[in-house]
């Protein structure tokens, strides 16, 4: 699986890839067809990044994972069209610090298109975080499915932590759902952890790790699997030592 360091403004991909962003603005384009694809997008640029993504998927099964654990600002607009007999599975992990504005615009275009998106978000005190997740099932896209779920953990009263799921459905014979859970760390859980000797930062560390690495297996297929784990652990240690 090629690793692409995205230094260029426009990046066209047509196979499974790991994309590491190293530029201010990236326009990512793809038309994936007739196959199984896994794409990992890892933000590793030490400043604000704007990521514009335009994709279409036909007769394929595609997994995309986004991982953003930096404190820098981010603007992300993602527009993906899912066509006949295709599935799209999206897993996102965002650490909300700084200013982040993210829009997912996902379309079930044609019959038998399946979309499933899971968002994992941790927002810290200085976060101005906005995620809008719009699922649209177009007319004629029979037997399509669009499922969204989001978990948002807030710590120390972030300035803004907003997650907005939207479903537009223009077809009857479909399945669609969204779930959103958000909350802060339960006082009783914190007491329980404290009572075993962990101070607040140590307790937070364990909880954040679980949030930011919700599913190790998800990344296992990428060469970067271990790198990601180490990165997440390092970020969490960084946050918890502040």
């Amino acid at each position, binding site marked *: 699986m090629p690793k692409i360091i995205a230094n260029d403004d426009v990046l066209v991909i047509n196979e499974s890839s790991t994309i590491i962003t190293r530029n201010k603005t990236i326009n990512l384009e793809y038309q994936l067809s007739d196959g199984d694809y896994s794409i990992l997008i890892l933000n590793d640029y030490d400043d604000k990044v704007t990521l514009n993504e335009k994709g279409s998927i036909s007769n394929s099964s595609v997994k995309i994972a986004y991982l953003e654990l930096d404190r820098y600002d981010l603007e992300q607009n993602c527009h993906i069209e899912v066509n006949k007999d295709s599935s799209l599975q999206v897993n996102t992990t965002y650490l909300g610090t700084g200013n982040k504005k993210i829009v997912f615009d996902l379309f079930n275009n044609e019959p038998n298109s399946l979309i499933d998106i899971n968002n994992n978000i941790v927002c810290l005190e200085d976060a101005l975080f906005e995620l809008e997740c719009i699922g649209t099932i177009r007319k004629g896209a029979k037997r399509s499915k669009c499922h969204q779920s989001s978990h948002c953990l807030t710590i120390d009263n972030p300035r803004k932590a907003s997650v907005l799921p939207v479903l537009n459905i223009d077809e009857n014979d479909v399945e669609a759902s969204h779930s959103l859970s958000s909350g802060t760390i*339960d006082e*009783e859980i914190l*007491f*329980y952890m404290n*009572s*075993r000797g962990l*101070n607040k930062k140590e307790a937070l560390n*364990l909880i954040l790790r*679980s949030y930011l690495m919700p599913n190790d297996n998800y990344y296992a297929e990428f060469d970067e699997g271990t790198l990601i784990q180490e990165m997440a652990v390092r970020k969490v240690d960084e946050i918890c030592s502040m």
Partner: protein
Amino acid sequence: MVIIMNILEIKDLHVNVAEKEILKGVDLVVKQGEIHAIMGPNGNGKSTLLQTIMGHPSYTVTSGSITFNGEDVLQMSVDERSRKGLFLAMQYPKEIAGVTNSDFLRAAINSRLEKNISLFKFIKEMESNISKLKMKEDLAHRFVNDGFSGGEKKRNEILQMMMLHPSIAMLDEIDSGLDVDAIKLVSDAILELKEKSDLGLMIVSHYERFFTMIKPTHSHVIVDGRIVVEGDDELVYKIDNDGYDWLYDELKIQPVKESRPLVYSLGTCARNPRGKNA
């Protein structure tokens, strides 16, 4: 040779919960190697005493003192109390989704060590304790108490105690929800730990069965926020036979009646058979 004697001293302890006085002057001394049975009717302050010693933020000490080996416990944070050697097995253990038992325990052990425990030693100890308590082998990789049965949660509290090696352990109704065999396993594990480390214990339970196995050296009965009678294990058996009424008569006291909510929602009524009589 310096012999360090672990000693927890509670003097004239008054505690408020939500502006209401629950403990009204408790005196109690627990030394290493002693086993104190704490009994009393529901809602009269047993858990409040234990939670206050551990430092739960909902319980406010309005007067009195708690010291451990001469140090002021009330000045310590909850995690500091734990690292000093106090342990509370909770009546209702919390679930921590996403955090595995193994990560949780390893972090808890490391928090009290200069140098982190080796993974090898940790796994060996964990496996040996899991098998002593006849718990499922995949326990280490499951999330803390998440989806555990009532009995599994209680065993997991004991597992944590065995791994953390406290000096004084407080067990709040650790036997409720355990079947007969599990009670035996758990009491054997507690006694073994006590033999090894001269652990001091405060044990809250409503049942004689558990105390018969554990054989308390002291016993106390808490009614309306005070210890009203003390003794040895004979007192436990007397209460198991005769209940508390003789105490109320003799001492001319009244227990606190558990307050029930006055308004039941329809949903609760439908599901709770007791709701009908309320």
